[in-house]
């Protein structure tokens, strides 16, 4: 074999190898191109949500604005006129004329005289398309101006056409659920909120200057706001980073006067302001950060994993304290919501009926009574079997008592998009972890439901893990701890004597009675205005298909003597076994003035803005280490 033939063979082998490799690489690139459409926007960048808060931004511009509003209300007026700096001489006349017009001002007070926050947004020469035939005639040869105001409480825009020469209002039109272009005053405030927001500064890595910010999303017509679900006035100032071809969009809620959300996005055409709204950002943020992945947390000796589920709310998994396993899973799987009604004889023999315009399930009782209602599942905002959806991400905050930090909690908010309207719900899952090794699982109801005779039952599934799953459950009965041998349930009277005045149940290691937890039911002693748990407790042997994975709606909303867990009671032995505690508190709502509970009311605050008054009802037991109690 000649030298040239050897070279040829070597070239052929290397060449074929290189071509083969190149071909496979090219094929793999094609595969990437061919990935099917998904809801994950691959070009999307980070979403930033501020902490859950009802407070306006703590900045000078907002304080100044609220001061001006307050001064206006003190004069008995609720419409904030434009500053002279935003008006020409004819505009001033037009604004004065409009502000004396009864029709223009007719939506500025509630029927009982409460002032509603209104801002004049712009006063400019009227254009032909705004005018009726009659107005066109009258405006020919005259100066006609348009005066637009926005009602923050009703989310409506009112437009008046004023003949400046005759000082007459020619037409008044009102547009429900519409927002106008905003005034320079509000533009300044929106920019200030964006510029001074700690989340924006943190995201940019420095305090931005005003000339870095543009207001591309100032409303240019009377279309839906980015905060349409809340019916608030929102705008989206933007910080462009041309070097990296991206921009940080800040959504500023001008009704609440705070940052609502922010998002990094490309500068390309794809990213039109229309795609950026608070709810969509929240959904994407929640899906990508808490539904699609687990989060780990280590704090105050505790280690845990948490995520949002499809229908079981926020789940805490693999909970450890000081390195020792405490629980495999803690979650609230369901809320049973039942209302009481009278007139069962009129309901026919189906199991559903119309109540307040909705078809609901009902169960007939005695004395012509019946109960009707819903099973509410809480979960991820997309791809879930829930109707009460995660709102904002989990909030992790310290627990402060007497000025001292004694632990931390994780709180997740779930809402029907239309809460607090009737038949819409808001729930919270809260898990409190204390430095001393205690923890509490808390279910919070923030109303408002369909009526004032509601009974709410959150179903808590608490899979405590002790001593390699050799667990023992006991209840305190007339001064004696009684161990449970087989699966069962217990209905508390809420008046039983408690061990050391606090504990009614305990779960402990079958091999070491000092390892485990006393369970302190809520009798209103936790300082949160709760009216107690009135709980029913079930203990079952662990089975993976009994709720370890996402549990779909459990049992009936309306059979008050059943919680749905009964189906798992099979007389199985639970002594020294891996057991699960199901803790089901019962709360009754109350709408009596001064006694509201599990209730929410819409109202108007002192500044004429819409507010929601909350009357939460709170339930849930506290687990205290046995070693802390029996020292």
């Amino acid at each position: 074999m000649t030298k040239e033939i050897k070279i040829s063979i070597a070239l052929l082998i290397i060449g074929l190898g290189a071509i083969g490799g190149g071909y496979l690489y090219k094929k793999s690139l094609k595969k990437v191109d061919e990935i099917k459409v998904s809801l994950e926007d691959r070009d999307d960048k980070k979403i930033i949500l501020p902490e859950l808060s009802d407070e306006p931004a703590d900045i000078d511009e907002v304080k100044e604005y609220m001061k001006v509003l307050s001064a206006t209300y003190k004069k008995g007026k609720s419409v904030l006129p434009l500053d002279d700096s935003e008006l020409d001489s004819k505009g001033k006349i037009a604004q004065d004329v409009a502000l004396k017009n009864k029709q223009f001002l007719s939506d500025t007070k509630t029927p009982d005289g409460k002032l509603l926050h209104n801002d004049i947004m712009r006063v400019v020469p009227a254009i032909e398309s705004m005018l009726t035939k009659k107005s066109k005639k009258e405006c020919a040869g005259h100066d006609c101006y348009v005066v637009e105001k926005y009602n923050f409480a009703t989310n409506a825009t009112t437009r008046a056409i004023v003949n400046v020469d005759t000082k007459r209002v020619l037409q008044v039109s009102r547009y429900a659920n519409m927002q106008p272009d905003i005034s320079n005053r509000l533009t300044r405030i929106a920019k200030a909120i964006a510029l001074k927001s700690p989340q924006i500064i943190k995201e940019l890595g420095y305090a931005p200057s005003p000339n870095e910010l543009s207001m591309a999303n100032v409303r240019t017509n009377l279309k839906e706001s980015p905060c349409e679900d809340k019916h608030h006035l929102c705008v989206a100032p933007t910080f462009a980073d041309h070097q990296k071809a991206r921009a940080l969009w800040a959504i500023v809620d001008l009704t609440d006067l705070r940052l609502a959300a922010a998002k990094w996005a490309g500068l390309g055409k794809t990213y039109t302001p229309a795609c950026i709204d608070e709810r969509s950002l929240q959904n994407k943020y929640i899906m990508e950060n808490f539904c699609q992945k687990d989060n780990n947390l280590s704090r105050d000796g505790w280690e845990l994993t948490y995520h949002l589920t499809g229908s079981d709310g926020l789940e805490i998994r693999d909970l450890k304290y000081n390195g020792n396993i405490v629980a495999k899973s803690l979650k609230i799987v369901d809320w049973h919501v039942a209302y009481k009604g009278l007139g069962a004889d009129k309901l026919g023999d189906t199991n559903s009926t119309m109540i307040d315009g909705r078809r609901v399930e009902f169960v007939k009782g005695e004395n012509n009574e019946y109960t009707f209602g819903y099973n509410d599942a809480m979960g991820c905002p997309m791809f879930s079997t829930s109707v009460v959806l995660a709102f904002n991400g989990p909030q992790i905050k310290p627990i402060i008592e007497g000025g001292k930090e004694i632990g931390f909690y994780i709180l997740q908010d779930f809402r029907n998009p239309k809460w607090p309207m009737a038949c819409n719900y808001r729930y919270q899952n809260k898990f409190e972890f204390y430095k001393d090794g205690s923890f509490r699982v808390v279910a919070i109801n923030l109303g408002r439901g369909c009526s004032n005779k509601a009974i709410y039952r959150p179903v808590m599934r608490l899979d405590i893990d002790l001593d390699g799953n050799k667990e023992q459950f006991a209840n305190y009965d007339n001064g004696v701890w009684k161990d449970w041998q087989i699966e069962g349930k217990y209905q508390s009277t809420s008046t039983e004597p408690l061990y050391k005045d606090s504990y009614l149940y305990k779960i402990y290691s079958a091999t070491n009675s000092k390892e485990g937890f006393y369970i302190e039911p809520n009798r209103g002693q936790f300082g949160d205005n709760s009216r107690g748990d009135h709980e029913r407790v079930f203990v079952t042997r662990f089975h993976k298909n009994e709720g370890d994975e996402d549990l779909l709606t459990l049992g009936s909303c309306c059979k008050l003597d059943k919680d749905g867990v009964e189906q798992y009671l099979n007389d199985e032995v639970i002594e020294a076994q891996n057991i699960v505690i199901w803790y089901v508190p019962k709360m009754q709502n109350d709408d009596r003035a001064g006694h509201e509970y599990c209730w929410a009311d819409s109202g108007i605050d002192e500044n004429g803005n819409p507010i929601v008054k909350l009357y939460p009802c709170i339930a849930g037991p506290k687990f205290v280490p046995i070693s802390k109690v029996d020292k």
Partner: protein
Amino acid sequence: MKKYAPIIVVLFLLAIASYFLLFKDTIEPKKKTTFSFEEFNKNRSCASLPKFLLESGLRTSIIDLSQQKYKGIAFYTRNYQNVLHKKSWERFDALGTYTIDKFGNLYLTPNPFISIKPSTFNLQKAIYKMDSTTGKLTRWLVIDSISPSATNPYGFISIVYDCDDDTLYASAIDKSGYKGIKGRIYHINPKDKNYTIVVKNFDALTINILKTKNKKYLLAGSAIDNSLYAFEFKNGKLNPKPHLLFTLPNPKLHIRKVKIIAKNSLQIEAIKFSYSLIAETNKKQRYIFIATFNPTTKKWEIKEKN
């Protein structure tokens, strides 16, 4: 020179192999297939009124699947003064969409509503049929491979009858998740209930058939975005490649119903949809648009109907 011939031959062969395997489609890009839509008109449907409705005196009727007052299905007269609803029509829980064949039989798809019951997922695997003569509602076709789950409770979601060959098209959106779309469109022969999957990896929230002057399309409103797509029939067979027709102005809306209302004009009903449970179906939750096709400019104009 001759001694270098093997090297030259090898290099030549490698160059040819590289050309065909690595560069050909880069140098000569595949010709882009252009999609051109034509003018269309409202065609008379072959659907006939169910015979049992005629017998019960409801000569004109409105089909109510809103689940507000009645579970399952109910029929109203035009003025909503008379209603026909039977308890047996509630047995398959909430129903979402329907189509009627030329004999007056109704085919219906299910809909998970407000909360999940033990039977809910199973109910989503089926198409239901209401017999034209008896009005009896039965579980007509069950496809067990349809698998709703805790992260996507939906199964069959829309159905349409093809008057040309008396077959059905039905879409299912189960198995789709946040990271991938796995919806299918089934072609079903009602005579023997045989079916084939004609479109894969497309989540159609609604489907309808539209004929232009020369072509026939299956229109599909996407569950994943705010657009309407068209699948073209070629020689009677559905081509599985979707063509974008238009996109609604609001990115949060998804097309749930498409109706041909006049020449070059569609009425679009859109809803907010996120693959979680729907709690309300009243008119306030639906957004109506009129989409008008301009055959000259080949563009669509979308207007919201107030």
